């Protein structure tokens, strides 16, 4: 494994999005599929989150009533399941983001830009997470976002952080040496793409230290593979 790796340097990451107050857990799903599609086709295409907001009502088979529900949230694996069943996602420009869930589903199968071949969950082991990241592209992950409300920059490495997962993000890379002055040592970190616009964090990105499942970041990691499609 390389010591440092960042999919932004390899052209697999689209611009930072701003979900506003409508988070569907689709951002990490679209981000992972954008990366996988890039690896499969060589084309980086921004995919539609609004399609997920409007059309994905997939339910978690393990929790009654836990269904993806417009701006009220969802689960990333359910979003992958929907994408697999629907046949794929349209381009962002063909099905643009509105930030509301009051519209009807306008999915047009003839305009699918990327399709899921399969998706898998990755083990808790951080080396395996890094290996899957490097091999398969950006990974969908869940995290506890309590420290993200006030995050401005740097490597977040809280002494204590709940592992109760409440936010979906996209793991796009890792670094070997983030500066940690109080601990008097360099610390490795994950690079995470968020969906709160470029004015949040480090141009829309978040760095969180590696090594002890901080804020639950290693707990729920999914990788996706894309199939090549002919978009119109």
């Amino acid at each position, binding site marked *: 494994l390389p010591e440092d790796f960042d999919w932004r340097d390899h052209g697999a990451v689209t611009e930072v999005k701003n*979900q506003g*107050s409508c*988070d*569907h*857990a689709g*951002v990490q799903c679209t981000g992972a599929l954008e990366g996988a599609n890039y690896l499969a086709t060589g084309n980086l295409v921004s995919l539609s989150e609004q399609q997920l907001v409007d059309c994905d009502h997939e339910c*978690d*088979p*393990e*929790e009654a009533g*836990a*269904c*993806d*529900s417009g701006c*009220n*949230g*969802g*689960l990333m*694996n359910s979003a992958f399941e929907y994408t697999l069943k629907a046949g794929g996602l349209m381009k962002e420009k063909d099905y643009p983001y509105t930030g509301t869930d009051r519209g009807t589903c306008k999915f047009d199968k003839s305009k699918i830009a990327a399709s899921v071949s399969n998706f*898998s*969950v*990755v*083990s808790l082991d951080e080396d*395996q997470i890094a*290996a*899957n990241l490097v091999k*398969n592209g950006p990974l969908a992950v*869940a995290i506890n*976002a309590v*420290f993200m*409300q*006030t*995050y*401005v*920059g*740097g*490597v*977040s*490495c*809280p*002494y*204590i952080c*709940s*592992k*109760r*997962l*409440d*936010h*979906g993000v996209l793991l796009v890379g890792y670094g070997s040496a983030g500066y*940690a*002055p*109080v601990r008097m040592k360099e610390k490795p970190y994950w690079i995470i793409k968020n969906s*709160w*616009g470029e*004015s*949040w964090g480090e141009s829309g990105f978040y*760095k969180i230290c590696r090594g002890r499942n901080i804020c639950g970041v290693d*707990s*729920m990691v*999914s990788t996706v593979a894309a199939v090549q499609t002919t978009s119109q």
Partner: protein
Amino acid sequence: SLPENSDDALIRQVVDADAGVSETLSDDPLLGAEHHFTLFKKKYGKSYANQEEHNFRFKVFQKNLKRARRHQRMDPSAIHGVTQFSDLTRSEFKRTVLGLRGSRRLRLPTDANTAPILPTEG
């Protein structure tokens, strides 16, 4: 797992008083809070429906300055301060900004495919 307002309930580790103080906040986060709030509204284009709402949001903002300082103490290698969410209560932030659904602690689905173990050396 920790209770919902876990960042309020956590045991606080004692750290050096000078360590990791945010560049964006003074020692007393409430000093200049009105000035910070004015800058915040301008930067993020915030406006409120009436004076009552404005006053409420200012109180929330002040609490979030304290929260940012608390986070700074607990997370000294990052910078914590004012963000576009500084006028949201913790529950508003969770309800409107965070999207992972599930009342229980989330677990990996048992029927999901498991990624094969990859070689990580050499």
